């Protein structure tokens, strides 16, 4: 496709969950699979907005007159999420985080931030609106095809999770409702799918660099706005895999071209991306009529002194460069730089243990063990890594024993206890043991002797040392 002649203009809207508490209640932002403690059934009604008009998007949803059922879990839900209590003031950590992101995106920051209510009547917010505020404007990021403008950076609440629906009702779980989301909107300055992909990946990288964003499925959501010559703007919601962007953009361009060729109006609608990269009409594009002030909360005054003293995190891209210089290969550098454990890695580096050993232990050995033992959700604690590498650095355990130590730890033993079995033995003791093995198996070839010795020593000695002794004894 020749995107230039088509006149493709694309913009991105990226939503990223923050790994802090909920935005306007002091609840944990953890999702759950448990059975609900309570269920609440509600209706929503259309309301007139600030301008006296009922928003088209809003009235479209209420016209369905559905029952909304909300699953309440006491572990992550309060009366604020059930719309039974006014909101508390904004989560400090989330606010500080969005200031950080604004600075990383070269944005101007709003001096007085007013929290707004954005009318949402598909039931995904118990209140009938989403709390949202504009924090940064007028920023940019550098890409291989030049600067891409960042129009706005917004802090808002995530909506409730849709878990099921039938003809008359939709069921939502309130665990996700209120989790802080950053919404980043770019100008429609991308003109081909590769550029959209690059921009999305760069913004994603910047967000992950803060170390305080959620990871995993559903924690980042991308919407793409697309227009071509002769048509209006269409919003494609829910691009899960940025790798699929080429297919999605192409199929939308084809659809818009078809519509335009039949003299139909294109634009002003929101469409949902389906698994096959095509899309389905979702609702009309919302207007600004759906926005009015959140009267239960005071205006947030930006403290510019505090804001400028926030220490900016190292970008993942910079971090990766640093790791390459340490001698890690491309793949490992990228993996560990992107990993949530990069801070753990950095700290262990201070022990001067070989960086590749640290990286592979944290990234691969841990995975292998979990695969072998069929464990999914459990994670090695950071402290375990610090303690284990500190033992290694102080020659309290041997390098070859790491995998066995990790396996026994996973099974529930304490590191203190496990480490007793992997104390390196002194050189003279090692000499004695190896001599004994060689003497009693004098007819075996060298390889077998090494094998016997290693299994007898059970990881307490370095393989190279054993080989060297055997080499000399069998000369």
């Amino acid at each position, binding site marked *: 496709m020749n995107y230039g002649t088509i006149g493709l203009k694309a913009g991105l809207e990226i939503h990223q969950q923050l790994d802090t508490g909920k935005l306007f209640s002091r609840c944990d932002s953890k999702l759950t699979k448990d059975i609900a403690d309570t269920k*609440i*059934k*509600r*209706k*929503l*009604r*259309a*309301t*007139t907005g*600030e*301008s*006296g*008009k009922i928003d088209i998007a*809003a009235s479209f949803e*209420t016209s369905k007159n559905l029952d909304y059922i909300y699953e309440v879990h006491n572990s992550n839900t309060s*009366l604020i999420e*059930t*719309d*039974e*209590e*006014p909101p508390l003031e904004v989560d400090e950590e989330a606010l500080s985080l969005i200031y950080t992101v604004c600075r990383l995106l070269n944005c*101007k920051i*709003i*001096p*007085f*931030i*007013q929290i*707004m*209510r*954005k*009318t*949402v*009547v598909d039931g995904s917010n*118990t*209140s*009938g*609106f989403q709390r*949202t*505020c*504009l924090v940064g*404007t*007028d920023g940019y990021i550098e890409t291989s095809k030049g600067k891409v403008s960042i129009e*706005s950076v*917004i802090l808002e609440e995530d909506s409730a999770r849709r878990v099921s629906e039938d003809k008359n009702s939709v069921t939502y779980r309130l665990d996700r409702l209120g989790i802080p989301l950053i919404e980043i909107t770019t100008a429609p300055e991308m003109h081909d799918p590769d550029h959209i992909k690059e921009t999305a990946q760069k913004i994603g990288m910047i967000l992950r660099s803060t170390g305080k964003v959620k990871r995993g499925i559903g924690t980042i959501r991308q919407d793409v706005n697309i227009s071509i010559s002769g048509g209006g703007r269409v919003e494609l919601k829910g691009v899960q895999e940025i790798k699929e962007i080429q297919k999605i953009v192409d199929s939308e361009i084809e659809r818009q071209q078809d519509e335009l060729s039949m003299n139909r109006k294109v634009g002003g609608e929101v469409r949902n991306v389906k698994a096959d990269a095509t899309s389905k009409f979702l609702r009309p594009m919302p*207007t*600004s*009529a*759906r*926005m*009015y*002030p959140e*009267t239960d909360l005071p*205006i947030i005054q930006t403290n510019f002194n505090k804001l400028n003293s926030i220490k900016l995190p190292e970008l993942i891209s910079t971090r990766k460069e640093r790791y390459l210089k340490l001698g890690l290969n491309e793949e490992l550098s990228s993996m560990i730089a992107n990993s949530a454990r990069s801070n753990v890695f950095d700290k262990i580096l201070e022990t001067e243990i070989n960086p590749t050993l640290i990286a592979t232990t944290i990234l691969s050995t841990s995975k292998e063990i979990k695969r072998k033992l069929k464990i999914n959700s459990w994670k090695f604690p950071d402290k375990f890594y610090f303690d284990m590498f500190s033992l290694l650095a102080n020659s309290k355990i041997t390098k070859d024993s790491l995998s066995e130590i990790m396996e026994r730890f996973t099974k529930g033993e304490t590191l203190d206890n496990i480490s007793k079995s992997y104390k390196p033995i002194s050189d003279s003791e090692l000499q004695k043991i190896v001599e004994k093995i060689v003497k009693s198996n004098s007819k075996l070839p060298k390889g077998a002797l090494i094998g016997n010795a290693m299994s007898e020593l059970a990881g307490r000695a370095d393989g190279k040392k054993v080989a060297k002794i055997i080499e000399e004894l069998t000369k």
Partner: protein
Amino acid sequence: MSNVGNKVKVKYFGSEYEGILLESSDKNMHLLKLTNGYNVGLPRKGSKVEVLGKANLGLKANTLLITKNKSLPNVSLISTGGTIASHVDYKTGAVHPMTKPADLLGKIPELKKISNISVSAPMSIFSEEMNPEHWSKIAGFVARELNKDEIRGAVVTHGTDTLHYTAAALTFALEGLSKPVAIVGGQRSSDRGSFDGGMNLICGVHYAISDIAEVATVLHGTSSDDYCIANRGTKVKKLHTSKRDAFRPINTVPLAKIYPNGKLEKHNGYELRHSRKIKVKSKFESKVALIKYYPGMSPDILKCYEDYKGIIIEGTGLGHVATTTWLEPLTKLIKKGIFVGMTSQADYGRVDPYVYSTGRALTNHGVVYLEDMLSETAYVKLSWVLGQTNNIEKVRHLMVTNLRGELSTKSHPNAFLY
């Protein structure tokens, strides 16, 4: 001078913001509605405002065409203010009482299918501003409406904070009540999709056309939008600051459960609708006090009430105060002809003067124990009784006589924490 309402461009430290200038509650800040709908504030100091033109921000009132459907019953809706009749002032962001109650009908179109509703607004105040003079005014208004033959019942909208006081006041003031009176409020404002007052009003209107000739509060029965409960005006209290189902029956069960589709499940005995005229007895005495006793409380407070006509003491447990310090000053007040009644700060249950010597001492010295009456109801009732008579013996008699379901001799076994 004011550029409020104009389309402007504000320059602030190299940034430009374009939008409509709103009225700001903070003198040091320009409040701006940007084209994307977000409001932002910019310090006045350092900002340069350039006017681009006049903005179109006029609130278009819903011109509501009320056509009467002769096959439907007529209900009178009396708006007094509160959350249920509030709207957001988009200029200041503050919540204000609705000045045009017809707006309310525009928001809840279902009402027009149940009845013909005539709306009047004798006042528009927050419920914490209500006082006995307002009760009188509302009572007079309700009676005038209900005494019209064509009106089936009345719905009073009210702020929730003191809704139960007004409910009790109307119950006493409307003697010989012949038709239903629903008192309805909302805990969420009408600007939101989750406005609870919508269903409360619908159920309130269903109540108003029922055969229950009593004053009742009609609000959510649960946190869900499934049904409302109608609670007798003298036996109800706001037990939660913010939940939809905050109004609970005390020492009784609801008169009825009312579903938005009109289904009415009756749970309690009630007065039946009739056609006799209502007598309004709407005089309330204002020199009446409600005092909550707490451990260590000095009786000095009683000195403030020496020129009062009556006091309700919300005592501890079965109805106690520290007799060591309180008996003498209380006896002094009673001897001056001031009525002293005792209720309990344990919302549920009945006071009893005979279980402990404290109670016996108090009752022997003339403190009147008010059975299972709610403190708030006792306060309203005393104010009303003293508005009807100054004869202290009559007052003492009326206060322990059940007049409007406020006092029962039998404790309902399933009423606790209903």
